[in-house]
């Protein structure tokens, strides 16, 4: 059983389309992180959200933390081929020292 459920697992879209990736759990977290991983590399942190209801924007990416701090979403506006990669959510506060990852969303943006 996944502590963090990500959806969709796969997403294939055309350049210019918008998309949303979801990260859901029944647990409450002190913080939630989103990472992006390109082929052959390790994940790289995009953002950390800590406050319920928080919204953070990073250029065309908008991250939201649910009011109850159990879920989060990542919205990409006007996707570009450079956005292609594996997007992972990660939550802290589940137990000391251990951080939990979702299973990831593989995004492919076609030119």
């Amino acid at each position: 059983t996944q502590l963090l459920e990500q959806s969709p697992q796969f997403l294939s879209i055309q350049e210019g389309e918008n998309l949303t990736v979801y990260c859901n759990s029944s647990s409450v977290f002190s913080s939630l992180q989103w990472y992006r991983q390109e082929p052959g590399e390790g994940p790289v942190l995009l953002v950390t959200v800590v406050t319920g209801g928080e919204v953070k924007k990073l250029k065309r990416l908008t991250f939201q933390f649910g009011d109850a701090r159990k879920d989060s979403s990542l919205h990409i506006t006007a996707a570009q081929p450079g956005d292609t990669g594996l997007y992972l959510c990660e939550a802290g506060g589940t137990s000391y020292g251990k951080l939990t990852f979702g299973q990831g969303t593989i995004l492919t943006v076609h030119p």
Partner: protein
Amino acid sequence: GAGVSQSPSNKVTEKGKDVELRCDPISGHTALYWYRQRLGQGLEFLIYFQGNSAPDKSGLPSDRFSAERTGESVSTLTIQRTQQEDSAVYLCASSLQSGDNEQFFGPGTRLTVL
């Protein structure tokens, strides 16, 4: 180097052989994590170190897997009697302290067991 480094970057081995994977964390980071990632999948937690001790070994898939860390720096992940299902990318990450939100990842070691 400024980032986390791992070696080797690729390792091909025969079934039944032992392999040793190395991770050099960012200097000063007390927490170190090992993950396994199968092709096109998310990260599977294996073990983490706070300093040289490993409070949580719950993710190690079998007793063929072990890890150690010395000098609060380098860590090695050892897989004995490798099996084909061990084939995956093994990622190492470090953070300033355990439970810290941001982990810095190395590029991974791609292990292929023939």
